[in-house]
């Protein structure tokens, strides 16, 4: 793909984000977009956010579970960049008016205390470099009409990042079993679903190692202090005004999030 096309699609997605409207799937218009092209479009979209005053605060890993990989016809995860504008505080309702077609996912978040420079990073390096982990919610959103995404569409659209909320109980990855830790998700006081860390690449730590290695090849920095959302352990939960979600990770703690207002779609 030509640099001017990359720029044009990156700008189109950024403007859709600002205007809270959707655009047609890129792959429908450009059937030859490669995954590399898609990441370059993502870089452009994120660069526009940074130019407008946001900072990079971390990364998210997506497409980490087998059902989602099967659905998109891929064999590996993807990633997007987290910016300061996506951070929501636990305890403050999320205004759905900021979003287009949001869905919630419950995850384990990592915060790094050392840089992770791939390739060659293993799960043991990730544990060594982790300051702490937290339960969290990612509210994914898509700038692509009706979530009609193929892998190139979601990667170009910054891995469908919306906003995210970190819980407040910090855990040490050496104090609990990240792979076998149960995940209990409740919606409006009722059990919604359960899962386990192993749903994410066998263990969330494996997803972070994959990310470090992928970023290393691409030359994208992965620094101490960054937040990593390691991938959804739950099914996607549609959310509307008044909904409240609680996720609890066994041996770690809970994160709670509530929603107000109406999304664009």
């Amino acid at each position: 793909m030509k640099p001017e096309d990359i720029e044009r699609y990156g700008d189109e997605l950024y403007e859709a984000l600002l205007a809270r409207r959707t655009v047609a799937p890129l792959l429908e218009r450009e059937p030859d977009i490669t995954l590399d092209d898609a990441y370059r479009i993502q870089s452009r979209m994120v660069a526009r956010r940074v130019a407008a005053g946001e900072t990079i605060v971390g990364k998210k890993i997506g497409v980490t579970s087998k059902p989602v990989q099967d659905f998109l016809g891929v064999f590996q995860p993807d990633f997007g960049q987290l910016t300061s504008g996506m951070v929501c505080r636990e305890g403050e309702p999320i205004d759905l008016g900021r979003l287009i077609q949001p869905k919630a996912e419950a995850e384990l978040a990592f915060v790094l205390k050392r840089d992770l420079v791939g390739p060659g990073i293993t799960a043991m390096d990730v544990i060594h470099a982790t300051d702490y982990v937290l339960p969290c919610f990612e509210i994914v959103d898509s700038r692509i009409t009706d979530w009609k995404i193929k892998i190139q569409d979601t990667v170009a659209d910054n891995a469908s990042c919306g906003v995210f909320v970190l819980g407040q109980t910090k855990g040490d990855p050496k104090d609990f079993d990240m792979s076998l830790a149960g995940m209990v998700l409740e919606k409006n006081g009722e059990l919604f679903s359960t899962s386990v860390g192993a749903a994410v690449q066998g263990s969330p730590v494996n997803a972070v190692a994959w990310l470090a290695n992928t970023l290393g090849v691409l030359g994208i920095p992965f620094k101490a202090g960054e937040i990593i959302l390691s991938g959804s352990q739950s099914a996607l939960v549609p959310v509307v005004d008044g909904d409240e979600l609680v996720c609890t990770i066994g041996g770690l703690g809970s994160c709670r999030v509530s929603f107000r207002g109406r999304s664009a779609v």
Partner: protein
Amino acid sequence: MNLTLNQADILRLAAHVEAAQLGAHAIPKLTDEFPAMTIGDGYAVQSELRRRWVARGERIVGWKAGLTSKAKMLQMGVSVPSIGFLASDMARPENSVIRTDDLVHPRVECEIAFVTSEALRGPGCDRDQVLAATDYVLPAIEIIDSRFSGFKFDLPSVIADNGSSARFVGGGRPRRVTDIDLRTLGAVLEKNGEMVTMGASAAVLGHPADAVAMLVNILAELDEELPAGSFVMSGGITEAIPVKAGDCVIARFQELGSVSIRFS
């Protein structure tokens, strides 16, 4: 409980189910012959089956709760849980080999098992009473095996078939309930080295001790208590996975270790 079957029918159905269980062959569900059969009728047949087990010299070691998760209720098309008895001849040691030629169409589930130190009696038994009466919990694999063709049944039939009980395997690491969070324990079921299903213990009626309380309350309706020293399986955390000869199954649990079993 409401009964529609007469004593002669109860005895005949129990003999019919027992023959299917011991001979490992499938039979039509009982409601094909008795469409008006109730849950109470199902338990009446199950009680006669239990009497026959004891008469053969087997010991009743405990009980199982079944159909306790949303996944299982959806899979089986029922809306309330059930219970069944566990006899000494159904127990198998961990890491052993289970023969499939004396089963019809076995499936495996990972569960949290409770061992009680005091008797529990309903009605009104609740989670706190169950936890107070629990000596320890341990991880378990249950091998269920409906004797009904195609694993298709309704609630009265499955209750008469002793809740599809077939074999059970306890193992792993026994834990005191005060040392762990019983609601959020993760479990992964692997078949032949591949993760096939997973979940957390809250999938069992919100909390596995609630499933045990439910079981005690059903026993009260049968005018029975759960004796001290009972082994109680609280219900599948995940959907049930079919197994065949040659399969190796490992259930891995947060905080409780793992249980493995092979099939020949």
